């Protein structure tokens, strides 16, 4: 059974709500967990580009509705990040247990860099160096630390929703 889009929407909406209302209270030396990014990157790695892109789009849209930023910015960023993360499927290192964490680190930095670029183009005044060093990098490290946990949960969902003919 494939995960249908209508089932994904409440799931990603819940992740966005948790990120907006709960996770902002938990911080480790300024780093905050970007749960939606980890979910989308995990799914892209497990299911490939097409499902990753759909999850990135819907997840980004859910974040956009809760964000004060222009609607569409998170959508665009997370959709492209999902595609980039899905390229990890093509590498020989993907079987390594450390690979998801490394991919989360790279994806997080790419995502935040792209988001900052879009915001700069939209006319926002951003302190690039400070944001990268004090927000993006610590958050990317925290994301890499938490990725194995998120990936494990998504792996179980992936295995449970795999089409019968693809199961070993």
């Amino acid at each position, binding site marked *: 059974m494939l995960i249908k889009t209508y089932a994904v929407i409440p799931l990603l909406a819940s992740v966005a709500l948790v990120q*907006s209302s709960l996770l902002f209270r938990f911080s480790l030396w300024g780093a905050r967990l970007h749960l939606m990014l980890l979910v989308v990157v995990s799914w892209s790695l497990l299911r490939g580009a097409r499902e990753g892109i*759909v999850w990135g789009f819907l997840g*980004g849209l859910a974040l956009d509705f809760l964000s*004060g930023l222009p609607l569409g910015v998170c*959508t665009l960023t997370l*959709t492209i990040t999902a595609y980039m993360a899905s390229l990890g499927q093509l590498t020989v290192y993907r079987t390594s247990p450390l690979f998801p964490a490394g991919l989360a680190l790279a994806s997080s930095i790419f995502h*935040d860099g792209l988001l900052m670029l879009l*915001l700069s183009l939209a006319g926002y*005044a951003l302190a690039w160096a400070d944001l990268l060093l004090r927000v993006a990098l610590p958050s990317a490290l925290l994301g890499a630390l938490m990725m194995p946990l998120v990936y494990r949960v998504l792996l179980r969902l992936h295995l449970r929703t795999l089409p019968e003919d693809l199961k070993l």
Partner: protein
Amino acid sequence: MTRMQRGGTLLFLLLFVSLAVVTLVLDRANRLQPAKDLVAQVTAPIQGVLAAATRRVTDLREFFIDVEECRAKNEDLQLLVDQLIIENVRLREAEIENVNLRAQLNFKQANPSFKLLSAQVIGRDPSNLAGYLIIDRGREEGVAVGMPVLTDRGLVGRVTETAPHSSKILLITDPSSSVNALIQESRATGVVQGSVVQGLVMRYIQQTEEVKPGDLVLTSGLGGNFPTRLIVGQVTSVVKKDVELFQQAQIRPSVDFGRLEMVMVLTSFHPIDSEAEQQAP
């Protein structure tokens, strides 16, 4: 992956990227406000419940310590102690709320000309890069774009977007925020801008003005975006270089933005829209 499959995937990506860009364009043209209102109406109560459930848990370490403590007590003292803990937590919550409300009441009594609307913080910007809050009061309760938001300790920010029952607040610590301010003692004016590390910087202070650590910084009211004499923070250090036209000061905000639970919207203040006034005949 064959070349054809790769091409198909890129087309798929292009389709969704185009959809995202269309969303961005429609939002810029303000065509998506009804959809945003609808989503805000659905999500605001859920965010309120989630925010209430975690209000006491303010950082990760505290959270784990609480869980460990609860588990140990649960083993030792079983049901009765559990009930007492729950009762205790409820009472502490009520006490904290009482303290917050008392502080707000004192502030209201000290500023009788202010018409203030209390609001609960129900969310934060999920992007980590921007300083926004979401509160549980919106258009229906009289909140409008531009209204200042404060606590009894000082200025928090201003309303940038409203939905029927929730609003988004741009914090003064966001790098895109600017507040015209003055130093209380010397009356030196400048502009307070946000910075990434939740601090504030006061720029454009004349070189001839005397500014020293410990000075209080208040809103000046210039520009008509904020009322006068709201506390912004306190000077912690001053950077004065002979080669520069202005000096600047590092400001410690009077409000602890990491622990904001309740705020007040100054509904009696309407900012002056200078652009609209200039265009008017």
